[in-house]
């Protein structure tokens, strides 16, 4: 069994019980096929970088689980048909995980505490890099000049 992780965006305006229903459906598929969910992390509502389905915000839900590769297709197909789910991405984390090690891992279920607003850190301005390229070229040109007098100075006995 391999470790996977699925991050999905649910519609922000759905009721809590529908979110629980979606989680329940995922549990049903994964555990029904003999997998095990290790982490359910509900990030809560978060501002999206671009509009999805005309919504500026989305409800993020993260699932980490161990499963056999065959059920991933079914999981993704179900997610596509789920109308609450707007987008999802499934990533493989680890290769084989021993069943014995898995049995000891308890499930972690994190619930959201507050609405997360993405803190806008000042992004790196693009002009800085274009300027830097010119700086690098200028530096190289400058290095060409002091080389000659320096070398001649060392040669003098």
């Amino acid at each position, binding site marked *: 069994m391999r470790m996977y992780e699925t*991050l999905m*965006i649910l519609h922000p305006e759905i009721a809590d019980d529908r979110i629980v229903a979606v989680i329940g459906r995922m549990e049903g598929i994964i555990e029904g096929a003999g997998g095990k969910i290790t982490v359910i992390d509900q990030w809560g509502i978060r501002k*999206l*970088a*671009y509009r*999805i389905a005309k919504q500026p915000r*989305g409800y993020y839900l*993260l699932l980490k689980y161990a499963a056999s590769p065959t059920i991933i297709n079914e999981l993704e197909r179900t997610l596509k048909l789920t109308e609450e789910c707007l*987008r*999802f*991405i499934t*990533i493989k984390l680890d290769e084989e995980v021993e069943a014995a090690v898995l049995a000891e891992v308890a499930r972690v279920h994190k619930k959201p505490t507050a609405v997360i607003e*993405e803190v806008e*850190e000042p*992004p*790196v*301005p*693009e002009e800085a*890099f274009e300027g*830097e*390229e010119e700086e*690098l070229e200028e*530096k*190289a040109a400058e*290095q*060409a000049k002091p080389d000659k007098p320096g070398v001649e100075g060392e040669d003098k006995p």
Partner: protein
Amino acid sequence: MNRPKRHFQRRKMCRFCADKNIVLDYKETKLLRNFITERGKIIPRRISGNCALHQRGLTTAIKRARTIALLPFTVAQG
């Protein structure tokens, strides 16, 4: 007219090689934002100073984050 081609001294070390504990995860938007420009473009390796291996990992992480709307594809200017 033939100026010998100069290779610039690489001023920066790859910060992922320096600190092996940083994991390149597409969910870590705070870390990834340091490597995209204002317009959302990925910063080239010769500017950021990353080594090839980590630049590839970084690019995959940024592209994944973009598909799941954690990072923008492009930001309109002005």
